């Protein structure tokens, strides 16, 4: 599948934003500290930025409001509805923290639940497509949710360190979430690599009863919308390298840095620097992971275009 930069950016940014919002909603951070106040604003900015960038790939973005109407059947519509509804508890919580410097459990917990539900809806857009076998599994939403939680906790660790708190529990939680996320991701990828294709050129043409089927000629000499959108090859060519980049930056580096943080118990500037580096590495790794998520997935339609 073609990885539209706007969609990669959207799923990464909004995943981080909702993860952070979910953690803020749990009241793990000191609401009176300036770093926490900023974190609320950053969470809202990440979510809004992600949503805005997701409209960049639309053919007619001025009609995007219509996407709120089909929540009965469409996961994309459900995501839109949830995203907008989630702004209510999130802005309420942000107001309380930024203006009044306090935490209130009602908008907090509501915001956490709705943020995670929104991430789930995003993942289900992909997981519900039977035509893309690699995505069509429960592991897809599990990955998205765990990566959002891990990302949220890592930002929370950074914010806590900035506010001077020396806390080993939060980095330990981030480490656990990171491990869980990558464990599921590795399982997801192993499943994808071992899949027997649901559809083949034989089933796509119904000619399997005669013999093995091979594309002789495409309908047109040049590329078309379908081959550009569904037949992206650059990512697949470099898949092994991208996977290494994703794992080194997204898993190995943040794990080491979080361990340093836990062992040293550093707060303040040194702690914040370590946590910041871990976060930066994680976000880079996540971008590579998201690119692979799209680029490695094969679409059934390619059976008509020679794979």
């Amino acid at each position, binding site marked *: 599948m073609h990885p539209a930069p706007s969609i990669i950016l959207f799923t990464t940014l909004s995943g981080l934003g909702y993860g952070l919002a979910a953690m803020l909603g749990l009241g793990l951070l000191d609401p009176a500290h300036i770093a926490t106040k900023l974190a609320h604003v950053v969470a809202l900015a990440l979510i809004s930025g992600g949503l805005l960038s997701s409209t960049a790939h639309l053919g007619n973005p001025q009609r995007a409001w219509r996407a709120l109407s089909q929540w009965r059947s*469409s996961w994309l519509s459900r995501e839109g509805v949830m995203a907008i509804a989630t702004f209510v508890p999130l802005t309420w919580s942000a107001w309380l923290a930024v203006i009044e410097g306090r935490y209130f459990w009602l908008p907090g917990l509501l915001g956490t639940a709705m943020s995670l539900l929104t991430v789930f809806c995003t993942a289900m857009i992909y997981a519900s497509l039977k035509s*893309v076998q690699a995505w069509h599994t429960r592991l897809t939403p599990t990955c998205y949710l765990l990566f959002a939680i891990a990302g949220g906790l890592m930002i929370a660790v950074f914010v806590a360190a900035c506010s001077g708190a020396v806390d080993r529990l939060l980095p330990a939680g981030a480490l656990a979430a990171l491990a869980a996320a990558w464990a599921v991701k590795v399982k997801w990828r192993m499943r994808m690599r071992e899949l027997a294709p649901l*559809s083949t050129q034989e089933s796509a043409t*119904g000619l399997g009863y005669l013999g093995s089927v*091979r594309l002789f000629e495409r*309908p047109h000499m*040049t590329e078309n919308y379908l081959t550009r959108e569904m037949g992206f090859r650059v990512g697949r060519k470099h898949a092994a390298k991208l996977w290494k980049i994703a794992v080194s930056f997204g898993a190995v580096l943040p794990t080491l840095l979080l361990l340093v943080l836990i062992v040293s118990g550093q707060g303040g500037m040194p702690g914040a620097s370590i946590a910041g580096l871990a976060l930066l590495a994680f976000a880079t790794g996540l971008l590579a992971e998201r690119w692979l998520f799209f680029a490695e997935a094969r679409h059934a339609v390619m059976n*008509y275009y020679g794979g």
Partner: protein
Amino acid sequence: MTSLPALPTPKKLGLVIDLDTCVGCHACVVNCKEWNTGGYGAALSDQDPYGAEVSGAWLNRVHSFEVVPDGEVVGEAGEARIVHFPKSCLHCENAPCVTVCPTGASYKRADDGIVLVEEDKCIGCGLCAWACPYGAREMDLAAGVMKKCTLCIDRIYNETLEETDRTPACVRTCPANARHFGDLGDPESEVSKLVAERGGIDLMPEQGTRPVNKYLPPRQRKPLSASAGLLPEDTSDATGLFGWLDKMLDRI
């Protein structure tokens, strides 16, 4: 409303495509573009139409496949063959492109089962094209809306056209009579009989889409000698001069 019709549609209008007779001339492709660029919805735009990288939205395309039975070599005698394969929207009963649409632009008509896009509602997100395993939907890059086969809805119900023209453009133009249009929900219709007789099949049944359009597989080949007229001619009805000549020549 992008939920599928709750009940099976009373009519299931669709196409039956005969892979045995299609010669791969692409006339259906051209006539489809010709009709639909001026018909329902936005024109079917081309990008870089006179350049090296020409591309555009088409609602019907003909692929060509090579089929080789196990152990056979292409070019030697046997069953190996080229099959021309026209493909357009299959108007699935369980259309995944419809339910994923976030805006209600994609829908399946409850009365005849045609899957359509209401272009004024389409935001051009492309999710329906991702959901379709057949590649039946293509984005029009100029209009930013999704295009697909309408089964020539502006022909089949168009009473200003002659009755013979009230079929989809691809069917009307096919010189090999490889495309047939009708109600596949009616077991007594010509198309349903054709499907029953020739063992019409669904494409990718494993995707669970339940396509309405059916494909008639190529007939088994028989050796040329089986078709050659080697039987003596029947002349029992010859009379007059030729009857006499027939008898005389038989005697020689």
